[in-house]
């Protein structure tokens, strides 16, 4: 029989027992909806976690440090390491070289320094962290109360909530207020050979450091400074931006402002005792990749440049493994309903064989081959599977919308930002429909074979 005729006869047969076949199709739809809902939840959570983790900078960043940091203070050089590797300084040349690497979004230094904050006549100890402009769009400051920095060079600050509570009981009143940051600024000193009069250094502490641009200089002095900053926002959570990124910071200021302050940092003293290349160096640089999958190649390139690197590349692999297993388990649970629906299809078609026994005999007497009868039942199962698959995907999508709505309602009540915990990608839509059809055809296999094997003489005798 031709495919169109098979289809017409199958649809006609299904319409004749519309209630029973509709219920069977509904069973398939519920099964598919369950599967789609479960997998969509898994995919949605995976996307949410991936997005949040990507935004956190944990997986798309490489922390770069100089190898000299690890080999100083009388420790022997590493085997097989070249002198160049050991001597390569993490300076602006290296930074620009890294910026030119393929798939690198940005390279910025880690600037964090201890400060004393004066607010409303009181003094508070805290740590300031410089924030790159890219933090605005990567979600790290999504939950900020108030606003992000108005410009990269604005004298503005965002206060972490715990520190804000120290400043004021009514944290929201802090926005728009000013605070004063007291810090120590590095100031270069002239080379001892160039300056015969040590008295010119005044009351500053003299060291020999290349870190602040005091190259080939006689060291740097540290001078107490103050900076007035406007509070523009309060962040509830501690924004992360990669390991050692903004972590432990309680007061966030634009990176450019932090750089301009030339504040003395923890590693300055260590750098001060080391032989200098004559250029300003960084304690560490953060290199951001376009996506986590590029991290490995970037890391390799930076290592070949002679620097030490660190990333959480392996952690992303573990995350994928976790979600693969998670999705598999959700898929198995979701498939249970579809398995029950499969039994429904088998039951419906077996009942149809009993009811249509005589009809099968007539078809065979009129010239239908076993194959025709088998195909007819197959198509009927396939139609139920297709319709069930389409309706099931729709139902699954609605369930997802409901779950997202309920979740966001709950998050809103908890004063948390909304989240998309549900995702129905195209591959899932098409895959679920295809799976429903395959399952239905498998369910129709036994009834179809049984129908095809009916003896026409026996079938014609059946009343």
């Amino acid at each position, binding site marked *: *029989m031709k495919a169109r005729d098979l289809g017409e006869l199958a649809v006609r047969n299904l319409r004749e027992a519309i209630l029973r076949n509709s219920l069977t199709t509904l069973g398939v739809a519920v099964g598919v909806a369950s599967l789609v809902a479960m997998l969509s939840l898994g995919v949605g959570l995976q996307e949410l976690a991936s997005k949040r983790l990507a935004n956190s900078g944990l997986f798309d960043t490489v922390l770069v440090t100089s190898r000299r940091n690890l080999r100083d203070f009388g420790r022997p050089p590493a085997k097989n390491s070249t002198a160049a590797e050991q001597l390569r300084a993490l300076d602006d040349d290296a930074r620009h070289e890294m910026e030119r690497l393929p798939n690198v979004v940005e390279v910025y230094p880690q600037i964090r320094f201890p400060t004393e904050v004066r607010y409303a006549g009181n003094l508070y100890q805290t740590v300031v962290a410089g924030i790159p402009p890219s933090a605005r769009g990567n979600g790290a400051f999504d939950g900020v109360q108030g606003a992000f920095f108005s410009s990269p060079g604005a004298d503005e600050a965002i206060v972490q909530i715990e520190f804000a509570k120290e400043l004021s009981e009514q944290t929201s009143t802090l926005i728009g207020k000013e605070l004063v940051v007291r810090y120590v600024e590095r100031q270069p000193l002239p080379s001892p050979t160039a300056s015969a009069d040590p008295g010119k250094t005044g009351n500053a502490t003299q060291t020999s450091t290349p870190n602040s641009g005091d190259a080939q200089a006689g060291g740097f002095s540290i001078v107490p400074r103050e900076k007035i900053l406007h509070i523009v926002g309060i962040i509830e959570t501690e924004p992360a931006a990669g390991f050692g990124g903004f972590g432990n910071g309680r007061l966030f200021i634009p990176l450019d402002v932090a750089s301009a302050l030339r504040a003395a940092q923890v590693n300055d003293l260590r750098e001060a005792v080391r032989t200098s290349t004559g250029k300003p160096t960084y304690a560490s640089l953060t290199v951001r990749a376009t996506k986590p999958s590029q991290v490995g190649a970037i890391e390799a390139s930076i290592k070949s440049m002679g620097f030490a690197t660190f990333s959480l590349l392996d952690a992303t692999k573990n995350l994928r493994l976790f979600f693969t297993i998670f999705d598999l388990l959700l898929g198995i649970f979701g498939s249970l309903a579809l398995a029950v629906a499969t039994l429904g299809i088998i039951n419906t078609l077996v009942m149809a064989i009993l009811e249509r026994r005589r009809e099968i005999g007539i078809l065979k007497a009129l010239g*239908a081959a076993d194959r*025709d009868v088998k195909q007819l039942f197959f198509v009927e199962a396939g139609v139920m599977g297709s319709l069930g698959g389409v309706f099931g995907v729709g139902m699954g999508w609605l369930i997802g919308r409901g779950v997202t709505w309920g979740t966001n309602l709950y998050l809103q009540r908890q004063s948390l930002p909304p989240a998309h915990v549900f995702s129905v990608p195209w591959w899932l839509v098409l895959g679920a429909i295809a799976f429903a059809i395959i399952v239905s055809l498998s369910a129709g296999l036994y009834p179809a074979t049984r129908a095809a094997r009916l003896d026409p003489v026996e079938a014609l005798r059946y009343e």
Partner: protein
Amino acid sequence: MAPENGFAVRAEGVSRHYTMGSALIRAVEDVTLGARTGEFLALLGSSGSGKSTLLNLMAGLDRPTSGTIFAQGRNLSEMNAVELARYRSRTVGMVFQSFNLLPRMTLEENVELPLRLAEVDRAERAKRVQGALEHVRLEKRLAHRPSELSGGEQQRAALARALVNRPAILFADEPTGNLDTATGEAILLLLQEIQRTLGMTIVMVTHERPLAERFAGRIVTLADGRLVSDGAKS
């Protein structure tokens, strides 16, 4: 393959046995019988004589336990299931005592069914269905369902369905069994007309000797699965 020798269908030493519980039923036992092309042959016998079983064997609905059946020069025993289905579809038409129309379909759809199975083009189908229904004078009942027709009309519709594929042989199993005498006679007149006008071979099973004698060209009598007489009308 065997020579046709003028036979549209021929059974040679055909037996059909089957078991029912522990008992062996010999429904047909060593029957040799042929229907010549264009002949109207009646298989006469009482209930359980094996006439319907023999008809089913010759129509390709069943396979003999032993013996061979030739139809249009081909040995049905050598045909596989697909070939046998094609034989039923293209060479044979069947009419049953209980009409066996599909109740959910209209007359038009019922008559069209063999054409769908034979994969006849759609454009051709409509013409053939119309022609077949005109032949049995039901062309105005195309859209009716079998339940909306009388018994005689249903049997005429079944006849149209059997004829629509232009078979060489028409097998009729007690075609008047569910009809009153007058309607039964009308059906047999129609069969006779078809046999004469189309030159079709008709093999009809009946237990009503008067009807067989009146309409069939040749009567074969079976009893207990065996052929007991084969000859012209008495």
